């Protein structure tokens, strides 16, 4: 097995206090003093301190991984707390990095935690990642997933992968020197909006706990050089039926980045690659309506049709009076009675699904379409405070 760590363990020692702390590791021959020193010498970068990042950061801190880097630029909000167990109610409104660091230091003050308060992008990823031995991807968007993959392949780093959606999770270890990379699995991302994110589609709170813990386990195995890593294998979990499956992953001989003749030899523009435009939706300026503008439209008695493209169960959470329910996937069939020149305002939870619905209606010949920016959550935040934000 090739060496994962950049630092040798020759100069590493454990204090008596550390020996007591890690005693349950030390008495297992698979870890022992050497393994625990390897953990102390290891440098692991976690991209994202959210659902997946929470258990990974906490278990790696507890295990004594010597240097843990955290990348995040977000703040904690109430809707994170159902699953992001590294953060607590008192941290709402604060930086996720500061909050995560405090939890990890409370678990284990013997380790170094390095904070990177940035959005990982093509101009900083190589610099940040090159300082670490292993990278763990716990983000929630395709741009960062392809960016992390490509940077890891270019720098010859191992990428410990996990991904979740509702009740389903995936985990694998991408090590292009020994097996496939993320691009071998999926050469391209789906078009924006097709696969909802956790904020749009929801996620069972425990699921990132299970998948993140599997990622933490893989990281520790890689560091101590024991067992069989998930290289070349994709682990799938259906938490509703509690079914684990394992699929074989092959290295794609034509992979754009990790094959013998790669076409990608440096980082690219990942927003463009993933089809994400600056407004996030690919809509024109006159196709967007703010919550304030919608209020003016309603108060000015201007003829319009307000369509809620969410699922029926979401209307039980919050609802704008007068909105017609037409779930995004059925909208083409449900809208037939509305004239094509009507002013139609579409809304969902945060504006992603409604943008997609808008594109569908445009193709059907509707000419006066607006997307409520920020969805019903923006309406609740700025106009009607009696509604919950979810």
């Amino acid at each position: 097995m090739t060496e994962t760590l950049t630092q040798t363990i020759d100069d590493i020692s454990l204090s008596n206090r550390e020996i007591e702390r890690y005693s349950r590791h030390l008495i297992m021959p698979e870890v022992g003093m050497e393994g625990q020193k390897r953990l102390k010498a290891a440098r692991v970068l976690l991209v994202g301190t959210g659902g997946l990042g929470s258990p990974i950061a906490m278990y790696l801190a507890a295990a004594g991984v010597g240097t843990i880097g955290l990348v995040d630029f977000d703040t904690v909000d109430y809707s994170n707390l159902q699953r992001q167990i590294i953060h607590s109610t008192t941290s709402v409104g604060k930086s996720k990095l500061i909050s995560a660091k405090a939890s990890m230091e409370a678990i284990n003050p013997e380790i170094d935690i390095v904070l990177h308060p940035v959005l990982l992008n093509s101009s900083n990823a190589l610099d940040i990642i090159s300082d670490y031995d292993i990278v763990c991807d716990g983000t929630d968007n395709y741009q960062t997933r392809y960016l992390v993959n490509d940077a890891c392949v270019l720098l010859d780093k191992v990428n410990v992968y996990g991904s979740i959606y509702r009740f389903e999770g995936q985990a694998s270890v991408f090590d292009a020197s020994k097996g496939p990379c993320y691009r071998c699995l999926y050469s391209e991302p789906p078009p924006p909006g097709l696969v909802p994110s956790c904020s749009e589609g929801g996620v069972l709170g425990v699921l990132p706990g299970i998948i993140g813990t599997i990622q933490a386990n893989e990281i520790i195995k890689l560091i101590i050089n024991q067992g069989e890593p998930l290289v070349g294998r994709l682990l799938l979990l259906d938490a509703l039926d509690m079914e684990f499956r394992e699929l074989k992953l092959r290295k794609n001989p034509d992979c754009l980045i990790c094959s013998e003749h790669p076409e990608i030899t440096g980082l690219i523009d990942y927003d463009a690659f993933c089809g994400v435009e600056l407004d996030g939706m690919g809509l024109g300026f006159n196709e967007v309506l703010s919550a304030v503008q919608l209020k003016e439209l309603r108060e000015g008695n201007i003829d319009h049709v307000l369509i809620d493209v969410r699922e029926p169960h979401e209307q039980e959470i919050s609802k704008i009076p007068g909105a017609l329910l037409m779930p995004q996937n059925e909208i083409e069939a449900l809208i037939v009675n509305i004239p094509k020149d009507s002013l139609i305002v579409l809304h969902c939870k945060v504006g992603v699904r409604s943008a997609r619905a808008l594109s569908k209606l445009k193709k059907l010949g509707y000419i006066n379409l607006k997307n409520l920016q920020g969805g019903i959550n923006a309406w609740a935040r700025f106009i009607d405070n009696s509604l919950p934000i979810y």
Partner: protein
Amino acid sequence: MKVKIAIPTPLRTYTNNTKKIEVDVESVAMALKQLIVEYPKLETHLFENDIIRSYVNIYLNDDDVRYLDKQYETTVVSGDTISIIPSIAGGL
């Protein structure tokens, strides 16, 4: 040959929440065609100009169909499971 097709969560919206369907076919390609006949809304999410989309992988049991000798024309035997594994990116 009676084989099962497993539908992943993100695509169940287009199958009335059905998780698994059973089809009586000879090959992987025929199974997918039969799936589209039963659930036409799935077509655009699985195929682009009759080719499987790059963010969807099809597995016959635990093998990626792209790496089997006959790929989608691979013959199936009763009891096989075909799985659709789409790309998901959630993590926060």
